[in-house]
């Protein structure tokens, strides 16, 4: 594809199609020429990794759906039939099972990368919000997918999580729960509708991911310096530079992924899910999948009623409080771009933010650990402190930091540190189209 987008593309049939539906022009512009900051690190691989993970999940999921039976009497055995009698069924199922975990691993790293480098800041607020929507959709999809094998954790996890809605007062919650279940307990109607939604939601995720990439390509990727490109010398074409870099990332990802699929396929699962669901036997310990544990810890951290002092009037009971806290822990991400008003994006140039970022990472790991522990002392107390810190970080520390912190001086341009301090003098030679070095973006990183 040598011709440029302005002159049309290709020849013959390609040209004929492209004239009527400029899809080749679009692909050339967004995947080939697409100007990308030249200084992206391997931390920028995780977006494309999340994309490949979604594709893997959809492909293996469709193959599994051809063999699975969504009925309480048959679901468990149909999964075992896939494992034993379907050709390579065990492989497809183990890919799908571990794929869910690996999807969350890459997405969580992707999110923390965005948090550190301020990728949520103007003008990328909508890009960020779309990402949070994808996270929510992923959580709903993963939760419903975990119910389908109809093991003990499937059943009891579904019971616990759907019951959360019963915390809503005035009888509304109970009505919602019965509506979700399609009955008066988690039963066949619940399983079948979860199956239908589990098949639907990944395509919704794919659609939101397209919007996510659309918003991304509006201003292009953020970068480790967090400053805007000052001109073409700061950017390189996506292909071949980032296509090759992403391919290497795929390779590394697949090595880890394969190591789990072939040598520890059940490591991230729970043994109880190899016991068929039994509504009469409650497992001693109901634990969600590992990727939900931090949120589960926040849910369980609210062990006290919130009442008007000295009156004993309960405003929010402990259960509702926990549910609100859990949903708020995600909701707060939507308003993050406005909580952190520091004009400096990258944590590299924010001496205090940097530390608080790593404390926040540790806090999330602590919450994950607490989520796996029984609800007893001292785990409950540690979980409460960690939950408080989670919200403090977003609601108090970030707004204060953006006012009080004095950021370090920003480099003049992306190419300056990359090209070894030569800066603009050496850079314009790189300009592919000989354009002037004027930024097409309004640069928000005015120094204080």
């Amino acid at each position, binding site marked *: 594809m040598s011709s440029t987008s302005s002159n049309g593309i290709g020849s013959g049939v390609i040209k004929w199609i492209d004239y009527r539906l400029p899809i080749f022009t679009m692909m050339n512009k967004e995947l080939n020429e697409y100007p990308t900051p030249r200084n992206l690190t391997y931390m920028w691989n995780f977006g494309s990794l999340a994309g490949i993970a979604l594709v893997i999940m959809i492909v293996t999921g469709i193959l599994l759906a051809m063999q699975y039976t969504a009925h309480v009497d048959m679901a468990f055995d149909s999964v075992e039939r896939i494992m034993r009698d379907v050709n390579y069924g065990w492989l497809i199922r183990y890919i799908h099972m571990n794929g869910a975990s690996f999807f969350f691993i890459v997405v969580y790293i992707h999110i923390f990368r965005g948090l550190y480098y301020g990728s949520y800041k103007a003008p990328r607020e909508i890009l960020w919000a779309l990402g949070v929507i994808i996270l929510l959709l992923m959580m709903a999809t993963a939760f419903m997918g975990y119910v389908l094998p109809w093991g003990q954790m499937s059943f009891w996890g579904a019971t616990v999580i759907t019951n959360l809605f019963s915390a809503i007062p005035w009888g509304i919650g109970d009505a919602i729960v019965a509506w979700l279940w399609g009955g008066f307990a988690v039963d066949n109607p619940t399983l079948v509708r979860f199956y239908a939604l589990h098949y639907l939601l990944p395509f919704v995720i794919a659609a939101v991911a397209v919007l996510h990439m659309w918003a991304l390509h509006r201003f292009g990727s953020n970068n480790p310096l967090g400053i805007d490109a000052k001109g073409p010398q700061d950017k390189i074409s996506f292909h071949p530079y980032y296509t090759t870099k992403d391919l*290497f990332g795929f390779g590394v990802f697949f090595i*880890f992924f394969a190591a789990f699929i*072939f040598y520890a396929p059940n490591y991230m699962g729970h043994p109880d899910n190899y016991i068929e669901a039994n509504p009469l036997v409650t497992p001693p310990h109901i634990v969600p999948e590992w990727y939900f544990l931090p949120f589960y810890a926040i849910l369980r951290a609210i062990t006290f009623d919130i009442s008007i002092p000295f009156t004993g009037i309960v405003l929010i009971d402990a259960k509702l409080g926990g549910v609100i806290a859990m949903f708020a822990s995600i909701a707060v991400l939507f308003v993050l771009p406005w909580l952190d008003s520091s004009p400096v994006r990258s944590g590299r140039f924010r001496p205090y933010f940097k530390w608080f970022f790593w404390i926040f990472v540790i806090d999330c790991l602590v919450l994950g650990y607490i989520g796996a522990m*029984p609800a007893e002392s001292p785990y409950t107390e540690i979980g409460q402190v960690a939950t408080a810190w989670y919200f403090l970080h977003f609601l108090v520390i970030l707004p204060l930091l953006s006012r009080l912190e004095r950021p370090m001086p920003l480099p003049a341009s992306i190419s300056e540190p990359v090209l070894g301090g030569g800066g603009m003098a050496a850079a314009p030679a790189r300009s592919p189209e000989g354009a002037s070095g004027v930024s097409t973006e309004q640069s928000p990183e005015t120094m204080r």
Partner: protein
Amino acid sequence: MNRRLFKSGSGRLLAAAVLSLGLSVPQAAQAAGAIDVPDHDFSFDGIFGTFDRMQLQRGFQVYREVCSVCHGLRLISFRNLGDGPDSGNNSGGLGYTQEQVKAFAAEYTIVDGPNDEGEMFERAGLPFDHYPSPFPNRQAAEFANGGAYPSDLSLMAKARKGGADYIYYLLTGYIDPPAGVDVGALHYNRYFPGTLTVDTGRIDDETGEPILEPVPGGLIAMAQPLWEDSVVYQDGTPATVEQMAEDVSAFLMWTAEPMLEDRKRMGIKVLIFLVVLTALFYAIKRQVWSKLH
């Protein structure tokens, strides 16, 4: 099974990789009184692990002669025992010939039907039949076992923390209960999860309550199933409790994961392929980017 993998050399690499990912994958939460089961060495451990066919056959014998009195194996068909390259199914079976499989199946009576006259009838088992469970339903099983349900064993090696190790240690874990533990109609087992406590005889100064001390193990409804020479092995192996426990644990790993060998064999090929491919990707990346630097 998988936990033990991390003990082997290559497993340690994997564990390190997991840690380096910054992942904290919490194991299933410790239920109150849950016990960490020690590792037992099995032939199928590790990246190159395979089943020992003679051991699987011995384990099958233990299952047939001891366990199957109470425990079902409903996910296993007789034909699975003869699985192998010559049966058209690559997943390894127990190394039996098709004739032996037919003979095993024929030992059982299966209710089939209805026939053309609408009647159910009995016939000898055939290779495609699933292993018949000892009780017609859960209620019958509980009624015959004092209210306790003898679980189906098909997936047992994946349905318990510790897997095959847990089964081995449970079967060899019948020891005398610690002093002060009242077992009642149950049986003390060192590795059964439980919340046992013994009275230390001391009194808490503040509350005035007796101080209770937790003891490992729990009370299990199943009496010790394996005793010296419970079976007479056809291959002449001395039938010690440890030997039988190891054999039947390995057999139950096979029933839970009959494709284990396929999986590990394919894994090596896939990993070698991926490492080479990734190295190539890295070389290409280096070459492409060298134009920039």
